């Protein structure tokens, strides 16, 4: 059977009206859209495809994480950084104009409710070798023992615009009363956005900037060293550029912490159809003559993977 997990069965196409567009810091924008049907279906960590033109420039949609959603209000918010033609054009759209977007797409972060109880949520390290079921990471936990949400220290780790998909997740942990930490690294203070909104949710926000203009001087990995985790097991939720993901995943692995990463790849469809967005994930089948890896689709098998699923040196 075709893996149904890799079909975005709840995705919808929407003509989303722009409710607000705000430049938070130079080049960093928050866009709020009206898309009731879509907003109702979102899970933290999912993304949408955004078509910024109705012509050929640019031709392809841009994948953007869901920064916030409100099923009751029917709204969706996106946080983005102007990187080129597409995001540049997006930033020049005004309230009242509308955009074609589709989603929610992909598998999001593992949510607290999926950590407790039920054996289906628990996976031992040895099961990593099951290539058939491994991909589509957020449903299984690669630890040796069951974990309950109240034994977990949620640790959000953001590099730059990687902060975008974290707020809905932080909200979910806040609703459980969990103490959570955001480690947020950026080039400089003028690239730090929405940090106060995490603070407002009770998240302990710690900042590192490369030029030292805010918080600790250095990269986000600095903040991970000598972290006091108390008697809890840290669960890292990491989003940022690939080298940062890799460094954080390495650190987490060394410490035996749980770690999820949200990957990025160039995408066409976002639907699992075109196979442009693949990443190498482990199959564990070396022992049975396999090559030990396969190409998973970032768009539908991810974008969130357990860090230990990912082949980092490939």
């Amino acid at each position, binding site marked *: 059977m*075709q893996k149904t997990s890799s079909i975005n069965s709840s995705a919808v*196409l929407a003509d989303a009206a722009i409710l607000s567009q705000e430049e938070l810091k130079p080049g960093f924008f928050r866009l709020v859209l009206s898309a009731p049907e879509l907003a109702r279906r979102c899970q933290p960590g999912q993304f949408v495809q955004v078509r910024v033109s109705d012509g050929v420039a640019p*031709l392809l949609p841009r994948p953007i994480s869901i920064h916030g959603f409100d099923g009751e209000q029917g709204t969706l918010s996106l946080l983005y950084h102007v990187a080129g033609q597409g995001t540049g054009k997006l930033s020049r759209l005004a309230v009242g104009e509308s955009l074609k977007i589709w989603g929610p797409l992909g598998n999001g972060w593992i949510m607290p409710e999926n950590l407790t109880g039920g054996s289906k949520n628990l996976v031992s390290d040895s099961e990593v070798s099951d290539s058939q079921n491994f991909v589509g990471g957020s449903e299984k936990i690669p630890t040796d023992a069951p974990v309950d949400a109240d034994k977990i220290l949620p640790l959000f780790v953001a590099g730059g615009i990687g902060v975008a998909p974290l707020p809905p997740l932080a909200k979910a942990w806040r609703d459980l009363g969990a103490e959570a930490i955001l480690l947020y690294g950026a080039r400089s203070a003028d690239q730090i956005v929405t940090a106060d909104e995490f603070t407002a949710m009770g998240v302990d926000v710690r900042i590192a900037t490369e030029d030292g203009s805010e918080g600790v001087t250095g990269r986000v990995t600095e903040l991970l060293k000598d972290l006091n985790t108390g008697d809890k097991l840290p669960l890292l939720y990491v989003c940022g550029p690939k080298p940062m993901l890799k460094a954080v995943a390495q650190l987490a692995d060394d410490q035996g912490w749980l770690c999820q990463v949200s990957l990025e790849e160039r995408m066409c469809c976002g639907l699992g159809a075109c*196979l442009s967005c693949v990443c190498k994930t482990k199959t564990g089948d070396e022992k049975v003559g396999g090559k030990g890896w396969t190409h998973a689709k970032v768009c539908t098998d991810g974008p969130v993977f357990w860090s230990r699923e990912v082949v980092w040196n490939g």
Partner: protein
Amino acid sequence: MGNLNLQVNLGGLAMKNPVTTASGTFGFGLEFAPFIDLNRLGAIVVKGTTLEPREGNPTPRMAETPAGMLNAIGLQNPGVEAFIRDYLPPLRQIDTPVIVNLSGNSVEDYGRLASILDGADGVAALEVNISCPNVKQGGIQFGTLPASAAAVTRAVRENTQKPVIVKLSPNVTDITEMARAVVDAGADALALINTLLGMDIDIRTRRPVLANIFGGLSGPAVKPVALRMIYQVYKAVNVPILGMGGIMNGQDAIAFMLAGATAIAVGTANFTNPRATLDILDGIEEYCDREGVRDVNELIGAAH
């Protein structure tokens, strides 16, 4: 519009309308089920299939270009056995013929694929992708030499009762020569165009953008080349044509039919709008309605 006939026949394959999907851009079909009713399509052409599973090329596999895109997927697919076992059963639930696109390293590969798929329930026709490197001939594409294209066509023809559609590569000096060669070898229909060979360079890193260096160009940018080749091939041979290459809307689809296409395939447009196939079908109907066309077959080749 109630009186409009949309049915076409693509070399023995009866289709309820001319709209199909371009292989490799529509996955195995179900990926688009959240957005469209797959039963409304004329046919579904699925991702290119090979004898063995393939992991394809390293990333980046795609790059956007002016009004187009490059891809170098490298035929990642689960292999024909897994296709028949895992992907075909749900497709059989849909009331739309499924066309399987095949690729191989050798003439024998194509023959074996054809015979395996000939026995598969739910496969309506075979689309032969000849834009694949011929391993035995040092990587030269089957699709660029009339003799090897004909050999591949014959191998498929001899191993199946199903309609054989041969998909031509546009990277040739004379597309009509290729068309004649494969029609003489038994093709029931032709599909064109596959992608134009292209590349892009990142001026910051000073390296090719695609890990594979070269990739296939598709999208609106190639439309004039596609229309020209279909127009030429329509004149040169007497089998129906499945036209594709940059079709974005109903008007483009009509232009392809006027050039000589009996049916059309929607490729890159699926990425820009997951409802593209049905929007295009609606666009064809609107055009016929407005222009007083009672049967889409009237349009085929009408620009000649």
